[in-house]
């Protein structure tokens, strides 16, 4: 069964093509990374994946359901951070994760336990009673991830989840993503950090010009192979889909 799926997505913003037939599927226990240059269409694809943007063409599915009209049953198993997270700047770290737990459908009796666990997991305990607006960019990003996973989702979408993190934060988020996948979750993550995705992803999909132009096997020389794939796509030499 596919946990997260985008099929033949097409969308334009005015004259600019943002998505031109992008398809990606993520199975249970799998971490799939979208990599690409700025403006390649990664974030637009993830906005469709989370229901925030209705595409002009193509379909998106989260646990088999349309994300734009996701019912409570599927939504309880879904988490995401695309752009701004489910964080209120006026609430403390603890209040934010507890509020997120409630809104994600965690039973009221379990909210405090779930909140404490994720605060501990992402090493946010020293800031547990600090207002979100006072956090550094890195801690705020970790709080956003905490709010997205406090309910233990089985489908997770993360857009650039480590962009503001220090090396320790990167390791924490990587281990969290890996452990969720090991527990059976499907994770779709976008990143510019090729070394990082090489460590966490099972598959790396190159997005360029709003479409998938092939996959990169995680491993050495990712940067060289990535640029080679982008160059090939620009010159339209190979058909997309092969693994470099």
């Amino acid at each position: 069964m596919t946990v997260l799926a985008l099929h033949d997505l097409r969308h334009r913003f005015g004259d600019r093509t943002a998505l031109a037939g992008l398809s990606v599927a993520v199975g249970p226990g799998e971490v799939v990374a979208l990599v690409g240059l700025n403006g390649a269409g990664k974030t637009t694809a993830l906005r469709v994946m989370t229901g925030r943007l209705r595409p002009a063409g193509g379909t998106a599915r989260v646990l088999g359901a349309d994300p734009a009209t996701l019912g409570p049953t599927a939504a309880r198993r879904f988490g995401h951070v695309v752009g701004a997270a489910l964080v209120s700047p006026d609430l403390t770290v603890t209040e934010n994760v507890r509020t997120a737990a409630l809104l994600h459908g965690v039973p009221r009796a379990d909210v405090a336990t779930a909140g404490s666990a994720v605060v501990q997991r992402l090493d946010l305990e020293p800031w547990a009673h600090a207002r979100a607006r006072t956090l550094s960019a890195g801690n705020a990003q970790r709080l956003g991830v905490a709010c997205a996973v406090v309910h233990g989702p089985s489908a997770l979408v993360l857009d650039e989840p480590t962009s503001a993190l220090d090396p320790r934060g990167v390791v924490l988020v990587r281990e969290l993503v890996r452990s969720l996948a090991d527990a059976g979750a499907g994770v779709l993550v976008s990143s510019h950090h090729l070394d990082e995705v090489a460590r966490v992803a099972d598959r790396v999909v190159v997005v360029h010009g709003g479409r998938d132009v092939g996959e990169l096997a995680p491993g050495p020389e990712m940067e060289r192979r990535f640029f080679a794939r982008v160059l090939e796509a620009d010159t339209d030499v190979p058909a997309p889909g092969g693994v470099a």
Partner: protein
Amino acid sequence: MTGLGTALRAETLAWRRSAVQRIATPLLVLLVPVAAVGLVALARSGAVVGAGAAKLAPYATGDAATTQLVAAGQVLSVAALLATGFAAAAAFAQPLADGRAGAYFGLATPRSTVALARCLVLLGWAAACAAGAVLLAVAASAVPSAGLGAEAWAAGGRALVAGLLAAGLALPFGAVATATRSPLATVGALIGVVAVTQMVVLVGGGAWFPYAVPSLWTGMGGPAAASAVGPVGLLLAAAAVPVGLAVVAWQWRRLTDV
């Protein structure tokens, strides 16, 4: 409604902690009784002459306590609309402007329920502020007069209802905020409606125009204009609440490109 209790819990906490609420609450609760007492004292001091004195003339005569509570109702009918309108601009447009609204997609508690809860929390807050302002105005009027007469109590009751109506009339600005996705545009629309209301009152249509009804009903346009406001006018003003709730919930259910 799926998860309304949960959404109310979350939205109440968020609103309690918000900077807008922390600033608006004392302003609304304290400004109204202070303005009412001040207006009446100024009108009776003889310190204001000319055009100003003519404006203050309605407050210069009659029972002081009753006049203060009438003035409280008049101030509250405008202040509640503006304060709740500003609150709606902050609560609905700001998350859309900064992208936080996108996080409300794909939740077990649907975003339309969250939006509905946000409206209800704003309405509850405005009602509590209106009640607090009227209570303080009643206290400020009762203490020097050693009690209130029936007329004063009626003026106090009318002030409270006018405040509630005015707060309800601000709910549609939650819809404006959602449509424009801009707090500034929402505040602009609010100011525009206040200006249009003045014009409608000038041409004599105030008794039927919902945004004019609370002020006119409290006597801001004089006794004749107040008596022209009937049950239909009051019901039209009150209808802003269910209409506002329905439109905002519908908008958030259909929200896209966030």
